[in-house]
């Protein structure tokens, strides 16, 4: 075995420390400002991963082509959370400890966000999230969390009201164990009960090959609407098992379970008629139109738009803060650049950076929406698209 004596160990350690020094200095000094993007590129929630990654890179290009943040370039460091809280924690540690990011954006699945949130506020790194679970902004986050996606309470309320409008009386919720599953059952059941109907639900284990018994149990309640609360892999199996069991009632899913990926993954008969409630980006805004043009797409999901906005919000907040580039500076200045009613409304990050550099004030509205945050960090004023699978394609039924 190679023997390492104390002296050479100390020597090697010192050399390593010296090698790491420039990087540490850069992180605080004049080098690029790093923003972490933690998104699902693989796994059950990865349906928007590729466009999220692209949107983050476009945001950085937009910021840097406008001269960066007070002359400093911005970099995004993109990490894959693998749709898995444990992998997400490792990736977040790397972003915080090694890359020294000032903020982390992306963070999509609620389980992932719940897992990394404490690392963020403990290290004074601002976390921008696209997750829905209400519990996230109830954490003691000291203002370090900003949520750009509607909460579960809001989405559940919309699903419940939609079910009632469709004339349904008996609701049954089927979804995997997530931080928000029970919330959905409670919220939607209350709405049905108030409308003279009834509601119940069942939380299942994800990663199963068959949900026949769960479907049997659901059908024993004789529901006329089933709410699908799962992600794409389990929702596709549940839909197949519902079809096999001959269920003829209505089905309403959520955007993370019933979307284009699901439509491509199942036989047309199986999904036909299933509704999906999708938080919508600000599709009429110039910011949205410019972003989809840069991405060479006809339409873009709200979550990728939110990731674009996460990067822009962090950069604008730092530009407004002046000298220091820290997570705390981001936290303290986000509301100042996103919801100052007296300031000029801007829908481009480049315009915002220029105004801020000239000492002005801005109110940034991005492709995902007007971006106004309540005291707990939740975004306010979100639109939804109601979609339905018709002849093997997703069609928009209405926007409200």
């Amino acid at each position, binding site marked *: 075995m190679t023997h390492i004596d104390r002296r050479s160990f100390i020597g090697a350690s010192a050399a390593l420390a010296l090698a790491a020094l420039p990087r540490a200095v850069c992180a605080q000094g004049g080098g690029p400002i790093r923003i972490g993007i933690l998104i699902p590129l*693989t*796994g059950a929630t*990865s349906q928007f991963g590729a466009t999220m990654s692209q949107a983050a890179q476009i945001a950085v290009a937009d910021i840097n082509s406008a001269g960066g943040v007070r002359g400093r370039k911005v970099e995004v460091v993109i990490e894959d959370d693998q749709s898995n809280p444990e992998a997400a924690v490792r990736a977040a540690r790397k972003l915080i400890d090694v890359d020294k990011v000032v903020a982390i954006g992306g963070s999509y699945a609620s389980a992932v966000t719940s897992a990394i949130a404490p690392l963020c506020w403990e290290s004074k790194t601002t976390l921008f999230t696209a997750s829905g679970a209400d519990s996230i902004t109830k954490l003691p986050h000291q203002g370090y969390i900003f949520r750009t996606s509607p909460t579960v309470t809001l989405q559940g309320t919309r699903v419940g009201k939609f079910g009632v409008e469709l004339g349904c009386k008996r609701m049954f919720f089927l979804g995997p*164990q997530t931080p928000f599953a029970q919330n959905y059952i409670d919220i939607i059941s209350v709405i049905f009960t108030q409308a003279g109907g009834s509601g119940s639900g*069942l*939380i*299942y*284990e994800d*990663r*199963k*090959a*068959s949900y*026949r*018994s*769960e479907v*049997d*149990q659901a059908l*024993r309640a004789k529901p006329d609407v089933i709410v699908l609360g799962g992600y*794409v*892999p389990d929702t*596709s*199996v549940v839909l*197949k098992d519902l*079809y*096999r*069991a*001959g269920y003829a009632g209505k089905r309403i899913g959520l955007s993370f379970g019933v979307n284009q*990926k*699901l439509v*491509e*993954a*199942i*036989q047309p*008969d*199986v999904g036909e008629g299933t509704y999906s409630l999708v938080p919508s980006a600000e599709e009429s805004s110039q910011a949205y139109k410019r972003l989809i043009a840069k991405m060479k797409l006809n339409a873009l999901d709200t979550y990728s738009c939110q990731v674009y906005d996460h990067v822009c919000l962090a950069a604008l907040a730092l530009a407004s803060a002046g000298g220091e580039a820290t997570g705390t500076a981001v936290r303290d200045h986000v509301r100042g650049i996103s919801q100052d009613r007296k300031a000029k409304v801007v829908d481009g990050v480049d315009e915002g950076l220029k105004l801020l550099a000239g000492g002005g004030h801005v109110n940034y509205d991005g492709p995902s929406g007007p971006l106004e945050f309540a005291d707990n960090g939740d975004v306010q004023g979100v639109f939804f698209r109601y979609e339905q699978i018709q002849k093997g394609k997703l069609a928009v039924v209405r926007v409200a």
Partner: protein
Amino acid sequence: MFTEFLQHIVNGLIIGAVVALPALGLTLIFSVLGFVNFSIAAQMTVGGYAGWLVNSHLHWSLIPALAVAFAASGAIGIIGDRLALLPMRRKSTAHTSLMVAIVSIALNLALENAMRFGFGSDLNSYDLPVSRDLVLGEIHVGPQQINNLGVALLLAIVLAAFFSATRMGKAMRAVADNPDLARLKGIDPQRLSNLATFIGMGLAGIGGALLAVDTSVDPSTGSRLLLIVFAASVLGGLTSLPGAVLGALLIGILSDVSLTVISPVYQSATAFITILLVLLVRPNGLFAGNSGVRK
């Protein structure tokens, strides 16, 4: 209440049948080669993709697609074995079988990620219609699931015949029983271990393809079932082929029947508690020593 109970048994049998094939493969490889090859999970996924490719792109029907799944998983199984596991097996130490098992976990991850690289993370459904369930009395069961059960049982019978009636099968049992003695009798263990790997992984491939027909295939299709496949094999005694099938069916039924009393969220926990209890009473598994590879 009784029909509900009966329905759970039927549903459990169906999922057990899908688990039975890879469990057979795992048991076969363990019996002949003496280690647990965890890369069987990735080989299930390989089978799922191979069948999907010829079914949805070349429009082959189910049975030829299953044959392709068998051949593809078997072939890739042998390649993986040669590249990663054989060099480890040659290093004979006290912990060789444990080390080989751990290398097979690494091989499993490598294969799974190779498929993710090649096919992406999307779900892919076979180009076969999803048929409505048949209703028998108050019990309903899918035609596809009956097929799966049939295929699994048929393959188990064919394998049993292979081991008791053919020279090659008997040679395999001889190697499983005592490799040194078998070599003295002129049996080439390397050739037999290739055959065992090919058949074992091929069975996993068919299992994966049947599972994918039922649901869909993505890079994690096999790893989702790995633990339960392993559990079925352990419950069956690890060296008994009928034991593997019965173990799989038993786990399927037990975990499904448990839903009558507990929340579905804890379903897999009940299966593993059952195994724990069974192994406390019979440490060698329920069916060890019964007719199988190692008699």
